[in-house]
């Protein structure tokens, strides 16, 4: 029997956003923190714009896979995908999501309509005990690179006291694992994510 706190996180986003890179970064952080970790990804096809899902299981799980109702936390890199992934959340779980919509083709063409942010918040709120929607793109740009928006979301998660390690460990991991030229923007992004949770 494992003594570690067991946690299951579901990541979802759109191809090209970097959600798999974010999953791997958090997994490396966990390993660095001495937490048992297994992550799972589904690499699909090369084309851009499809849904990309991944999972991270902390604290001694063996299976790299999640089913509906099993996730303690959802990390959504796009609000529509957060909503689509919501069935994975267990009742009372926690959601961290970007609030920046990336409309799929059918929406761009006006064939289908994108749910309003109010509707998304409401439907997420009906399942989650806590939910946070962050303007990741804007904060990422403010930090110096759009892609740093993913770090805003990860930092918010790390600062929330839900994980077996804190945002200080995540900061060290950024120092160790990121290439020099993107470090500054990501460290800035980390601050934004942390501040967001502090003021939430």
């Amino acid at each position: 029997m494992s003594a570690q706190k067991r946690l299951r996180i579901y990541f979802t986003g759109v191809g090209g956003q970097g959600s798999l890179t974010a999953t791997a970064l958090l997994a490396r952080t966990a390993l660095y923190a001495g937490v048992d970790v297994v992550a799972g990804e589904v690499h699909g096809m090369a084309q851009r714009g499809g849904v990309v899902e991944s999972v991270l299981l902390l604290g001694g799980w063996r299976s790299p896979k999640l089913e509906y109702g099993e996730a303690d936390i959802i990390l959504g890199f796009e609000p529509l995908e957060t909503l689509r992934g919501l069935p994975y959340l267990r009742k009372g779980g926690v959601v961290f999501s970007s609030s920046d919509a990336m409309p799929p083709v059918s929406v761009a063409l006006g064939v289908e309509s994108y749910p309003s942010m109010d509707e998304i918040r409401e439907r997420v709120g009906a399942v989650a005990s806590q939910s946070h929607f962050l303007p990741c793109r804007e904060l990422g740009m403010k930090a110096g690179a759009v892609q740093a928006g993913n770090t805003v979301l990860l930092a918010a998660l790390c600062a929330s006291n839900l994980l077996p390690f804190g945002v200080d460990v995540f900061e060290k991991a950024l120092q160790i694992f990121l290439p020099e030229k993107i470090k500054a923007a990501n460290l800035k992004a980390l601050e934004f994510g942390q501040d967001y949770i502090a003021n939430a």
Partner: protein
Amino acid sequence: MSNPLLQGKGDECHLLLGNEAIVRGALEAGVHVVTCYPGTPSSEVPDTFRRLGGNGKQYTLQYSVNEKVAMEVACGASLAGAKALVTMKHVGLNVAADPLFTATYTGLPGGLVVLSADDPGFHSSQNEQDNRNYARAASLPCFEPSSAQEAKDMTKEAFRVARELEQPVLLRTTTRVNHMRGAVRFGDLPASRDDLVEFKRNPLRHVPVPAVAKVRHKVLEENMARAQEIAETSPFNVSHVPAAKPKLGVIASGISRSYVLDALEEKGWSDRVCVLELGMTWPLPERLIAGFMGDLERVLVVEENDPLLENGVRAIAQKKGLGVRIEGKGAILTIQGENSTPRLVQALAAFLGEPCEEAVIEPAANLPKRPPNLCAGCSHRAVFYAARKIFGDDAIYSSDIGCYTLGMLPPLKCADFLFCMGSSISAGSGFAMVAKKPVVGFIGDSTFFHSGMTGLANALFNEMDIIVVVLDNGTTAMTGHQPNPGMIQEQLGDVMRHLDIESIVRGIGVTQVRKVSSFNLRAVEKALEEFRDMSGVRVLIAEEPCALYARRSLGKGASRVAEVIAQGEETKKCVDSFACPAFCCQNGEYSVDKTLCTGCGVCLQVAPKSFRLVKRG
């Protein structure tokens, strides 16, 4: 730059993708030769070897043109004494089966490990065949890892066994294992790779004429008996017996072991069943399994897809006269799709007689979908549009495997049937033999080299009818842009050579050949129009690099973008019939998403009054 896979010392611990762990395992084993044909979920193995840059130094890597060739090259290398690894996705092993079924007879002294990456659950495949069947059919010792650590360790062990027995060994993974990440504790890298096994000329072993093969079949049987002895005591076959020695047991293989153990722990049932984990799964360790079942009343066998382990366990019980009741596939543990922790909770609850209320969770209904789609600026779309314009529903479209299979989607609708790689030409010409309609076959460059050339030669040889469109985008796009002979020389470097598709087509003997730019709509249409009025084998080569590859690897940014200059009927028609994903429509107003547009200029040719290209600003 140093990479831990290539330089990392023993006892270091790194987070690795399952496929990277296989690479590390092969390096620790001292692999000399790696061959492959890409295919999800196996591709990161060769792609990692390529990225590491050890090619020509620590090992020799090759992207072969198809799996049969990859297998034969690896068999040859292994016969010459090298430790060889050949990698492919599950369906690839069908292509490679012919040499494999006889290489097991000749035996391979250098040591050959065959990676078959299976795909239960259809994450990216046309079927979910279970390649453990090949272990049985061809007589291959088989390993099935369930974690990144095991992926490394079993790869290394597979090489040890392959060399010891001189028999090819199957490393059978599934998508979840290839694409999982986990901590991997390294072993040492070999001090020297100077350990080729010298080839001893011996046609009475290596040339399987019937008299030779007959003798070798016996040797194969003996070697498989030795393999069974290895399995009996393999550290990858372990049992967990709780102190109370319960009378119920579970036998599980591959990734299913993880779901079993997670389900037991989650429900607090760990001390209620004995568990036998099998990682080396062929030949079956019969004594180990019989010993495990000896005192048990009931056993549940857990595996994905076919009931192979289950049938084997039943046979062992029958042979040993054991009264144990064996359960396995059924309503909960189906032969379809993947197992999962909740599926195992359900199966174990039924097995233990525990209540299990199934939480029914509905997917969020009515959300706009994000289906995979050809990228904006994809060269395939332009050709499909032209084909539809010329032939409409009058032609039958014989498709093939690649990004272009997505041409099946409306409005392009350019795929009516498909079997496997290369079938566009051969099945297409077969269809045309019977149907009274023109058949247009679409085939990508990688697929053309894989198995299109033979079908083309056959169609010509037999005077068949078909219009073949080679969609030459200069890369193997679908699986992650691996090299193929159609790739331009600059990208192939000095270890691979570009082959010219047009010369090959003409060399085979096809005389009705046209070559156009995929983005030149008029030229594509004109060629197809001419072909429509001709008969026999006709080949159109439509060339233009994959948009994603051009941007990522060729460094071709879009200097221009399209914009809408007129609204109205003609614009709508273009949007509806060409359907570039860069098109937008808000409140009846059309526009182009500049972040997606590649400036390919095809929309301008479809509707010249509606679009224009402007400098990207």
